[in-house]
Protein backbone atom coordinates (compact mmCIF):
# COMPACT_ATOMS: atom_id res chain seq x y z
CA UNK A 1 0.00 0.00 0.00
CA UNK A 2 2.77 2.41 0.97
CA UNK A 3 4.65 1.57 -2.23
CA UNK A 4 1.57 2.13 -4.31
CA UNK A 5 1.06 5.44 -2.58
CA UNK A 6 4.67 6.49 -3.10
CA UNK A 7 4.45 5.53 -6.76
CA UNK A 8 1.31 7.60 -7.17
CA UNK A 9 2.96 10.60 -5.58
CA UNK A 10 6.05 10.24 -7.78
CA UNK A 11 3.89 9.93 -10.85
CA UNK A 12 1.96 13.04 -9.88
CA UNK A 13 5.18 14.95 -9.33
CA UNK A 14 6.58 13.77 -12.64
CA UNK A 15 3.47 14.99 -14.40
CA UNK A 16 3.77 18.36 -12.73
CA UNK A 17 7.50 18.70 -13.50
CA UNK A 18 8.61 20.99 -16.31
CA UNK A 19 8.89 19.50 -19.77
CA UNK A 20 12.48 18.44 -20.40
CA UNK A 21 12.81 19.99 -23.83
CA UNK A 22 11.34 23.44 -23.35
CA UNK A 23 11.50 24.34 -27.05
CA UNK A 24 9.04 21.59 -27.98
CA UNK A 25 5.54 22.88 -28.65
CA UNK A 26 3.18 22.17 -25.80
CA UNK A 27 0.71 19.36 -26.20
CA UNK A 28 -2.96 20.41 -26.29
CA UNK A 29 -3.45 18.48 -23.04
CA UNK A 30 -0.68 20.41 -21.30
CA UNK A 31 -2.00 23.67 -22.69
CA UNK A 32 -5.43 22.84 -21.24
CA UNK A 33 -3.79 22.14 -17.87
CA UNK A 34 -2.03 25.48 -18.01
CA UNK A 35 -5.31 27.22 -18.75
CA UNK A 36 -6.81 25.62 -15.65
CA UNK A 37 -3.73 26.65 -13.66
CA UNK A 38 -4.04 30.23 -14.88
CA UNK A 39 -7.74 30.49 -14.20
CA UNK A 40 -7.88 28.60 -10.94
CA UNK A 41 -4.52 28.86 -9.20
CA UNK A 42 -3.40 32.27 -10.43
CA UNK A 43 -7.07 33.20 -9.97
CA UNK A 44 -6.85 32.46 -6.24
CA UNK A 45 -4.89 35.67 -5.76
CA UNK A 46 -5.55 37.60 -8.98
CA UNK A 47 -9.27 36.78 -9.29
CA UNK A 48 -10.96 34.30 -11.62
CA UNK A 49 -11.63 37.18 -13.97
CA UNK A 50 -8.10 38.45 -13.27
CA UNK A 51 -9.30 41.82 -12.09
CA UNK A 52 -7.04 41.52 -9.05
CA UNK A 53 -7.20 40.50 -5.43
CA UNK A 54 -4.30 40.12 -3.07
CA UNK A 55 -2.35 40.09 -6.34
CA UNK A 56 -2.51 42.88 -8.92
CA UNK A 57 -4.95 42.87 -11.88
CA UNK A 58 -3.80 40.74 -14.84
CA UNK A 59 -6.25 41.86 -17.51
CA UNK A 60 -4.78 42.69 -20.95
CA UNK A 61 -5.41 46.38 -20.22
CA UNK A 62 -3.62 46.20 -16.86
CA UNK A 63 -0.61 44.52 -18.49
CA UNK A 64 -0.54 46.68 -21.63
CA UNK A 65 2.57 48.62 -20.55
CA UNK A 66 4.71 45.56 -19.91
CA UNK A 67 6.75 43.51 -22.35
CA UNK A 68 6.43 39.74 -22.79
CA UNK A 69 9.94 39.28 -21.41
CA UNK A 70 9.10 41.34 -18.35
CA UNK A 71 5.97 39.29 -17.66
CA UNK A 72 7.81 35.99 -18.20
CA UNK A 73 10.53 37.15 -15.82
CA UNK A 74 7.95 38.03 -13.17
CA UNK A 75 6.25 34.63 -13.49
CA UNK A 76 9.56 32.76 -13.42
CA UNK A 77 11.12 34.60 -10.51
CA UNK A 78 8.12 35.97 -8.61
CA UNK A 79 8.09 39.34 -6.89
CA UNK A 80 10.35 39.33 -3.84
CA UNK A 81 8.74 40.81 -0.75
CA UNK A 82 5.24 39.91 -1.93
CA UNK A 83 3.27 36.64 -1.95
CA UNK A 84 3.96 36.18 -5.71
CA UNK A 85 6.14 33.04 -5.79
CA UNK A 86 8.72 32.04 -8.42
CA UNK A 87 7.11 29.55 -10.80
CA UNK A 88 10.34 28.44 -12.49
CA UNK A 89 10.56 25.36 -10.24
CA UNK A 90 7.19 24.17 -11.57
CA UNK A 91 7.01 25.50 -15.14
CA UNK A 92 9.29 25.35 -18.18
CA UNK A 93 10.15 28.49 -20.18
CA UNK A 94 7.78 27.34 -22.93
CA UNK A 95 5.00 26.94 -20.41
CA UNK A 96 5.64 30.40 -18.99
CA UNK A 97 5.53 31.84 -22.53
CA UNK A 98 2.22 30.07 -23.09
CA UNK A 99 0.85 31.68 -19.91
CA UNK A 100 2.01 35.12 -21.09
CA UNK A 101 0.22 34.51 -24.39
CA UNK A 102 -2.98 33.56 -22.54
CA UNK A 103 -2.71 36.67 -20.39
CA UNK A 104 -2.40 38.81 -23.52
CA UNK A 105 -5.54 37.22 -24.97
CA UNK A 106 -7.39 37.74 -21.73
CA UNK A 107 -9.59 34.83 -22.73
CA UNK A 108 -11.41 34.41 -19.46
CA UNK A 109 -14.29 31.99 -19.86
Amino acid at each position, binding site marked *: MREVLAATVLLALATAAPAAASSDPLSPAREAELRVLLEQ*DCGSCHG*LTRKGGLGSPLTPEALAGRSDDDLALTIRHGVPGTPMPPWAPLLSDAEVSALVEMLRQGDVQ
Partner: protein
Amino acid sequence: MSFRTLILASAAALALAAGTVGTAAAADLRGTGDLGLVIERAIGQVAVVDRLQNSRLATVKGLGDLSHASVVFGPSERYAYVFGRDGGLTKVDMLTGTIDRRVVQSGNSIGGAISEDGRLVAVANYEPGGVKVFDADTLELLADIPATAIGDGKRSKVVGLEDAPGNRFVFSLYDTDEIWIADFSADPRAPVLTQFAGIGRQPYDALVSEDGRWYIAGLFGEDGLAMLDLWYPERGVRRVLDGYGRGAEPLPVYKMPHLEGWAVAAGKAWLPAIGRHSVLVVDLATWQQVAEIPVHGQPVFVMARPGGRHVWVNFALPDNGTVQVIDTEALAVADTLTPGPGVLHMEFTPRGDRVWLSVRDRDEVHVIDTESRETLAVLPADKPSGIFFTSRAHRIGL
Protein backbone atom coordinates in the same frame (compact mmCIF):
# COMPACT_ATOMS: atom_id res chain seq x y z
CA MET B 1 -54.00 32.21 14.33
CA SER B 2 -53.01 29.01 16.06
CA PHE B 3 -49.44 27.72 16.04
CA ARG B 4 -50.45 24.89 13.74
CA THR B 5 -52.04 27.21 11.23
CA LEU B 6 -48.93 29.33 11.29
CA ILE B 7 -46.76 26.35 10.46
CA LEU B 8 -49.08 25.33 7.65
CA ALA B 9 -49.09 28.83 6.30
CA SER B 10 -45.30 29.02 6.31
CA ALA B 11 -45.05 25.62 4.69
CA ALA B 12 -47.40 26.75 1.98
CA ALA B 13 -45.39 29.91 1.44
CA LEU B 14 -42.23 27.84 1.16
CA ALA B 15 -43.81 25.43 -1.24
CA LEU B 16 -44.90 28.36 -3.35
CA ALA B 17 -41.43 29.88 -3.33
CA ALA B 18 -39.85 26.55 -4.23
CA GLY B 19 -42.45 25.76 -6.83
CA THR B 20 -41.80 28.95 -8.77
CA VAL B 21 -38.19 28.03 -9.41
CA GLY B 22 -38.53 24.26 -9.38
CA THR B 23 -35.65 23.65 -6.95
CA ALA B 24 -35.63 22.23 -3.43
CA ALA B 25 -38.90 20.62 -2.57
CA ALA B 26 -39.91 22.44 0.58
CA ALA B 27 -43.47 21.20 0.86
CA ASP B 28 -42.27 18.85 3.58
CA LEU B 29 -41.15 20.61 6.72
CA ARG B 30 -37.50 20.10 7.39
CA GLY B 31 -34.67 21.45 9.52
CA THR B 32 -31.45 23.00 8.30
CA GLY B 33 -28.95 21.36 10.65
CA ASP B 34 -27.90 18.82 8.04
CA LEU B 35 -27.44 21.32 5.22
CA GLY B 36 -24.41 22.97 3.71
CA LEU B 37 -23.17 24.96 0.72
CA VAL B 38 -20.50 23.99 -1.77
CA ILE B 39 -18.94 26.79 -3.82
CA GLU B 40 -18.67 26.03 -7.53
CA ARG B 41 -16.37 28.88 -8.11
CA ALA B 42 -15.68 28.95 -11.82
CA ILE B 43 -19.31 29.22 -12.84
CA GLY B 44 -20.45 31.45 -10.02
CA GLN B 45 -22.91 29.14 -8.36
CA VAL B 46 -23.35 27.26 -5.10
CA ALA B 47 -24.83 23.85 -4.38
CA VAL B 48 -27.09 23.24 -1.39
CA VAL B 49 -26.11 19.83 0.00
CA ASP B 50 -27.48 17.44 2.60
CA ARG B 51 -24.62 16.03 4.65
CA LEU B 52 -26.70 13.17 6.11
CA GLN B 53 -27.90 11.92 2.74
CA ASN B 54 -24.66 12.82 0.91
CA SER B 55 -26.81 14.45 -1.69
CA ARG B 56 -27.16 17.65 -3.63
CA LEU B 57 -30.52 19.35 -3.14
CA ALA B 58 -30.35 22.50 -5.23
CA THR B 59 -28.16 24.72 -7.35
CA VAL B 60 -28.19 28.47 -6.84
CA LYS B 61 -26.86 30.42 -9.82
CA GLY B 62 -25.83 33.99 -10.47
CA LEU B 63 -23.39 34.73 -7.64
CA GLY B 64 -20.59 36.27 -9.73
CA ASP B 65 -16.82 35.67 -9.34
CA LEU B 66 -16.50 33.14 -6.54
CA SER B 67 -12.72 32.76 -6.44
CA HIS B 68 -11.87 32.70 -2.77
CA ALA B 69 -15.55 32.80 -1.84
CA SER B 70 -16.56 32.14 1.74
CA VAL B 71 -19.83 31.73 3.62
CA VAL B 72 -21.31 32.55 7.02
CA PHE B 73 -24.72 31.50 8.32
CA GLY B 74 -27.38 33.44 10.21
CA PRO B 75 -28.32 32.08 13.63
CA SER B 76 -31.48 30.33 12.40
CA GLU B 77 -29.35 28.42 9.87
CA ARG B 78 -31.85 29.36 7.21
CA TYR B 79 -29.83 32.05 5.45
CA ALA B 80 -26.30 31.83 4.12
CA TYR B 81 -24.26 34.91 3.24
CA VAL B 82 -21.85 34.27 0.39
CA PHE B 83 -18.92 36.64 -0.05
CA GLY B 84 -17.64 36.72 -3.65
CA ARG B 85 -14.40 38.07 -5.04
CA ASP B 86 -16.15 40.67 -7.17
CA GLY B 87 -17.64 42.44 -4.16
CA GLY B 88 -20.90 40.51 -4.37
CA LEU B 89 -22.70 39.74 -1.11
CA THR B 90 -25.46 37.20 -1.69
CA LYS B 91 -28.03 36.04 0.85
CA VAL B 92 -29.09 32.51 -0.02
CA ASP B 93 -32.19 30.82 1.37
CA MET B 94 -31.08 27.29 2.28
CA LEU B 95 -34.64 25.95 2.39
CA THR B 96 -35.82 27.14 -1.00
CA GLY B 97 -32.45 27.05 -2.73
CA THR B 98 -32.88 30.57 -4.04
CA ILE B 99 -31.25 33.98 -3.76
CA ASP B 100 -33.10 36.06 -1.18
CA ARG B 101 -31.10 39.23 -1.78
CA ARG B 102 -27.88 40.29 -3.41
CA VAL B 103 -25.77 43.45 -3.46
CA VAL B 104 -22.50 44.23 -5.20
CA GLN B 105 -20.93 46.30 -2.47
CA SER B 106 -17.37 46.89 -3.70
CA GLY B 107 -15.09 46.17 -6.63
CA ASN B 108 -13.08 43.47 -4.95
CA SER B 109 -13.55 41.67 -1.64
CA ILE B 110 -12.05 38.81 0.34
CA GLY B 111 -14.56 37.49 2.84
CA GLY B 112 -16.66 38.45 5.78
CA ALA B 113 -18.21 37.68 9.10
CA ILE B 114 -21.53 37.79 10.94
CA SER B 115 -21.96 39.51 14.29
CA GLU B 116 -22.60 37.75 17.59
CA ASP B 117 -26.27 38.82 17.53
CA GLY B 118 -26.67 37.70 13.93
CA ARG B 119 -27.91 41.10 12.82
CA LEU B 120 -24.83 42.50 11.10
CA VAL B 121 -22.88 41.10 8.18
CA ALA B 122 -19.44 42.63 7.58
CA VAL B 123 -17.39 42.37 4.38
CA ALA B 124 -13.63 42.86 4.02
CA ASN B 125 -12.74 44.74 0.87
CA TYR B 126 -9.59 45.06 -1.21
CA GLU B 127 -10.90 47.71 -3.59
CA PRO B 128 -11.72 50.19 -2.18
CA GLY B 129 -9.90 48.95 0.93
CA GLY B 130 -12.07 48.86 4.02
CA VAL B 131 -14.98 47.15 5.73
CA LYS B 132 -18.67 47.56 4.99
CA VAL B 133 -21.34 46.40 7.38
CA PHE B 134 -24.87 45.43 6.33
CA ASP B 135 -28.18 44.67 7.96
CA ALA B 136 -28.43 40.87 7.87
CA ASP B 137 -32.15 40.96 7.02
CA THR B 138 -32.24 43.59 4.30
CA LEU B 139 -28.57 43.93 3.24
CA GLU B 140 -28.97 47.68 3.77
CA LEU B 141 -25.59 49.38 4.26
CA LEU B 142 -25.25 50.44 7.91
CA ALA B 143 -21.59 51.38 8.30
CA ASP B 144 -18.63 52.03 6.01
CA ILE B 145 -15.15 51.87 7.53
CA PRO B 146 -12.46 53.01 5.05
CA ALA B 147 -9.01 51.56 5.70
CA THR B 148 -5.83 53.63 6.04
CA ALA B 149 -4.88 55.58 2.90
CA ILE B 150 -1.72 54.40 1.10
CA GLY B 151 -1.46 57.11 -1.58
CA ASP B 152 -2.81 57.47 -5.13
CA GLY B 153 -6.29 57.53 -3.67
CA LYS B 154 -5.91 53.90 -2.58
CA ARG B 155 -6.52 52.34 0.79
CA SER B 156 -5.02 49.31 2.47
CA LYS B 157 -6.51 45.93 1.62
CA VAL B 158 -8.41 44.41 4.51
CA VAL B 159 -7.88 40.74 5.43
CA GLY B 160 -8.71 38.40 8.30
CA LEU B 161 -12.10 39.91 9.16
CA GLU B 162 -13.55 37.97 12.10
CA ASP B 163 -16.46 38.24 14.51
CA ALA B 164 -15.72 38.54 18.21
CA PRO B 165 -17.83 38.56 21.37
CA GLY B 166 -19.51 41.85 22.25
CA ASN B 167 -20.76 42.44 18.71
CA ARG B 168 -17.28 43.34 17.57
CA PHE B 169 -15.51 42.75 14.29
CA VAL B 170 -11.74 42.51 14.19
CA PHE B 171 -9.64 42.79 11.02
CA SER B 172 -6.12 43.38 9.69
CA LEU B 173 -4.77 45.89 7.19
CA TYR B 174 -2.42 44.12 4.78
CA ASP B 175 -0.64 47.17 3.38
CA THR B 176 -0.25 49.19 6.57
CA ASP B 177 0.45 46.48 9.18
CA GLU B 178 -2.48 47.27 11.46
CA ILE B 179 -5.20 45.47 13.41
CA TRP B 180 -8.50 47.27 14.04
CA ILE B 181 -11.43 46.45 16.32
CA ALA B 182 -14.83 47.83 15.31
CA ASP B 183 -17.26 47.67 18.23
CA PHE B 184 -20.91 47.69 17.18
CA SER B 185 -22.40 47.00 20.61
CA ALA B 186 -23.69 50.54 21.14
CA ASP B 187 -24.84 51.54 17.66
CA PRO B 188 -24.90 49.43 14.46
CA ARG B 189 -24.48 52.61 12.41
CA ALA B 190 -21.63 54.11 14.43
CA PRO B 191 -18.95 51.60 15.40
CA VAL B 192 -16.27 52.53 17.91
CA LEU B 193 -12.82 51.85 16.43
CA THR B 194 -9.70 50.77 18.28
CA GLN B 195 -6.57 50.70 16.12
CA PHE B 196 -3.24 48.96 16.63
CA ALA B 197 -0.29 49.94 14.41
CA GLY B 198 3.01 48.23 13.72
CA ILE B 199 1.68 44.76 14.41
CA GLY B 200 4.12 43.04 11.99
CA ARG B 201 4.63 43.08 8.24
CA GLN B 202 1.91 42.02 5.79
CA PRO B 203 -0.78 40.33 7.85
CA TYR B 204 -2.40 37.99 5.29
CA ASP B 205 -5.14 36.19 7.22
CA ALA B 206 -6.36 35.81 10.77
CA LEU B 207 -8.55 33.83 13.12
CA VAL B 208 -10.49 34.23 16.32
CA SER B 209 -10.10 31.31 18.70
CA GLU B 210 -13.19 29.22 19.32
CA ASP B 211 -13.56 30.69 22.82
CA GLY B 212 -13.58 34.19 21.36
CA ARG B 213 -10.60 35.39 23.34
CA TRP B 214 -7.69 35.53 20.90
CA TYR B 215 -7.38 37.26 17.54
CA ILE B 216 -4.31 35.97 15.75
CA ALA B 217 -3.01 37.30 12.43
CA GLY B 218 -0.51 35.42 10.27
CA LEU B 219 2.29 37.56 8.86
CA PHE B 220 3.56 37.05 5.35
CA GLY B 221 6.36 39.60 5.59
CA GLU B 222 8.08 38.07 8.59
CA ASP B 223 8.13 34.92 10.65
CA GLY B 224 5.67 34.97 13.48
CA LEU B 225 2.06 35.78 14.36
CA ALA B 226 0.46 38.89 15.82
CA MET B 227 -1.88 38.16 18.73
CA LEU B 228 -4.46 40.32 20.41
CA ASP B 229 -6.19 39.38 23.68
CA LEU B 230 -9.82 40.40 23.13
CA TRP B 231 -10.48 40.22 26.86
CA TYR B 232 -7.79 42.85 27.39
CA PRO B 233 -7.32 44.77 24.14
CA GLU B 234 -5.70 47.60 26.12
CA ARG B 235 -2.69 45.34 26.59
CA GLY B 236 -1.98 45.65 22.88
CA VAL B 237 -0.79 43.27 20.19
CA ARG B 238 2.01 40.89 21.05
CA ARG B 239 4.13 38.61 18.92
CA VAL B 240 3.96 34.85 19.17
CA LEU B 241 6.15 32.27 17.44
CA ASP B 242 8.54 35.11 16.77
CA GLY B 243 11.23 34.16 14.30
CA TYR B 244 10.23 30.58 13.67
CA GLY B 245 12.45 29.19 11.00
CA ARG B 246 14.71 32.21 11.07
CA GLY B 247 17.88 31.57 9.14
CA ALA B 248 16.23 29.03 6.87
CA GLU B 249 15.62 30.05 3.27
CA PRO B 250 11.82 30.14 2.83
CA LEU B 251 10.37 27.86 0.16
CA PRO B 252 8.06 29.32 -2.47
CA VAL B 253 4.42 29.48 -1.36
CA TYR B 254 2.09 28.58 -4.24
CA LYS B 255 -1.05 29.15 -2.23
CA MET B 256 -1.48 31.28 0.86
CA PRO B 257 -2.31 29.31 4.02
CA HIS B 258 -5.69 29.88 5.62
CA LEU B 259 -6.00 30.41 9.32
CA GLU B 260 -9.74 30.62 9.97
CA GLY B 261 -10.98 27.32 11.29
CA TRP B 262 -7.55 26.61 12.72
CA ALA B 263 -6.94 23.47 14.64
CA VAL B 264 -7.01 23.35 18.41
CA ALA B 265 -6.55 19.86 19.78
CA ALA B 266 -5.01 18.30 22.86
CA GLY B 267 -4.42 21.70 24.47
CA LYS B 268 -2.37 22.83 21.53
CA ALA B 269 -2.83 24.92 18.41
CA TRP B 270 -1.80 23.50 15.05
CA LEU B 271 -0.77 26.05 12.47
CA PRO B 272 0.53 26.04 8.92
CA ALA B 273 4.12 27.25 8.68
CA ILE B 274 4.65 29.62 5.78
CA GLY B 275 7.48 28.89 3.37
CA ARG B 276 8.18 25.65 5.18
CA HIS B 277 6.73 22.20 4.67
CA SER B 278 5.65 21.75 8.23
CA VAL B 279 2.86 22.15 10.75
CA LEU B 280 3.76 24.11 13.87
CA VAL B 281 2.40 22.97 17.22
CA VAL B 282 1.97 25.60 19.92
CA ASP B 283 1.20 25.07 23.60
CA LEU B 284 -1.85 27.20 24.35
CA ALA B 285 -0.85 27.76 27.97
CA THR B 286 2.52 29.32 27.17
CA TRP B 287 2.18 30.17 23.45
CA GLN B 288 5.54 28.49 22.92
CA GLN B 289 6.21 26.19 20.00
CA VAL B 290 6.46 22.62 21.21
CA ALA B 291 6.87 20.75 17.93
CA GLU B 292 7.33 21.16 14.20
CA ILE B 293 5.89 18.26 12.23
CA PRO B 294 7.31 17.68 8.73
CA VAL B 295 4.53 17.25 6.17
CA HIS B 296 4.14 16.61 2.46
CA GLY B 297 4.11 20.22 1.21
CA GLN B 298 3.18 23.81 2.04
CA PRO B 299 0.12 23.43 4.30
CA VAL B 300 -2.96 25.46 3.36
CA PHE B 301 -5.66 24.32 5.80
CA VAL B 302 -4.72 22.67 9.09
CA MET B 303 -7.96 21.54 10.68
CA ALA B 304 -8.77 19.46 13.74
CA ARG B 305 -11.37 16.77 13.52
CA PRO B 306 -13.96 17.76 16.14
CA GLY B 307 -12.87 15.96 19.28
CA GLY B 308 -9.24 16.65 18.45
CA ARG B 309 -7.94 13.11 17.90
CA HIS B 310 -6.50 13.99 14.51
CA VAL B 311 -5.55 17.05 12.51
CA TRP B 312 -6.06 17.01 8.76
CA VAL B 313 -3.86 19.02 6.39
CA ASN B 314 -4.09 19.90 2.71
CA PHE B 315 -1.40 21.50 0.59
CA ALA B 316 -0.48 24.12 -1.99
CA LEU B 317 0.69 23.37 -5.52
CA PRO B 318 2.33 21.15 -6.61
CA ASP B 319 1.19 18.94 -3.74
CA ASN B 320 -2.52 19.74 -3.73
CA GLY B 321 -3.54 16.19 -4.60
CA THR B 322 -2.53 14.96 -1.16
CA VAL B 323 -4.12 15.15 2.29
CA GLN B 324 -2.33 14.11 5.46
CA VAL B 325 -3.75 13.07 8.82
CA ILE B 326 -1.69 13.89 11.91
CA ASP B 327 -2.06 11.93 15.14
CA THR B 328 -2.29 14.65 17.81
CA GLU B 329 -0.96 12.37 20.53
CA ALA B 330 2.00 10.99 18.60
CA LEU B 331 2.72 14.40 16.95
CA ALA B 332 3.34 12.58 13.67
CA VAL B 333 1.69 11.93 10.33
CA ALA B 334 -0.52 8.87 10.68
CA ASP B 335 -1.96 8.62 7.19
CA THR B 336 -1.53 10.04 3.69
CA LEU B 337 -4.47 10.14 1.29
CA THR B 338 -4.51 10.99 -2.40
CA PRO B 339 -8.14 11.83 -3.19
CA GLY B 340 -7.29 13.46 -6.53
CA PRO B 341 -5.78 16.66 -7.92
CA GLY B 342 -6.70 20.04 -6.48
CA VAL B 343 -7.94 19.33 -2.96
CA LEU B 344 -8.91 22.87 -2.00
CA HIS B 345 -10.94 22.60 1.17
CA MET B 346 -12.01 20.26 3.96
CA GLU B 347 -15.14 20.56 6.10
CA PHE B 348 -15.87 18.28 9.04
CA THR B 349 -19.34 17.31 10.13
CA PRO B 350 -19.98 18.88 13.55
CA ARG B 351 -19.41 15.60 15.39
CA GLY B 352 -16.37 14.82 13.28
CA ASP B 353 -17.45 11.44 11.91
CA ARG B 354 -17.04 12.56 8.33
CA VAL B 355 -15.06 15.06 6.34
CA TRP B 356 -16.04 16.52 2.98
CA LEU B 357 -13.23 17.33 0.55
CA SER B 358 -13.48 19.41 -2.59
CA VAL B 359 -11.39 17.82 -5.35
CA ARG B 360 -11.43 20.68 -7.79
CA ASP B 361 -9.57 19.31 -10.78
CA ARG B 362 -11.73 16.19 -10.80
CA ASP B 363 -14.97 18.17 -10.40
CA GLU B 364 -15.91 16.13 -7.35
CA VAL B 365 -16.72 16.41 -3.68
CA HIS B 366 -15.64 13.38 -1.63
CA VAL B 367 -17.25 12.31 1.62
CA ILE B 368 -14.75 10.43 3.78
CA ASP B 369 -15.19 8.44 6.98
CA THR B 370 -12.68 10.07 9.34
CA GLU B 371 -12.06 6.82 11.24
CA SER B 372 -11.65 4.26 8.45
CA ARG B 373 -10.75 6.97 5.88
CA GLU B 374 -12.85 5.19 3.31
CA THR B 375 -14.63 7.25 0.70
CA LEU B 376 -18.34 6.94 1.40
CA ALA B 377 -19.69 9.02 -1.44
CA VAL B 378 -18.59 11.11 -4.41
CA LEU B 379 -20.76 14.02 -5.50
CA PRO B 380 -20.28 15.74 -8.84
CA ALA B 381 -19.55 19.46 -8.55
CA ASP B 382 -18.19 22.03 -10.99
CA LYS B 383 -14.70 23.10 -9.82
CA PRO B 384 -15.68 22.96 -6.15
CA SER B 385 -13.77 25.06 -3.64
CA GLY B 386 -15.12 25.95 -0.19
CA ILE B 387 -17.58 23.67 1.66
CA PHE B 388 -19.57 25.16 4.52
CA PHE B 389 -22.00 23.36 6.85
CA THR B 390 -24.73 25.26 8.69
CA SER B 391 -23.30 24.22 12.07
CA ARG B 392 -20.86 27.13 11.59
CA ALA B 393 -23.76 29.40 12.55
CA HIS B 394 -23.18 28.62 16.20
CA ARG B 395 -19.43 29.03 16.40
CA ILE B 396 -17.45 32.14 17.25
CA GLY B 397 -15.00 33.17 14.54
CA LEU B 398 -16.48 31.12 11.68
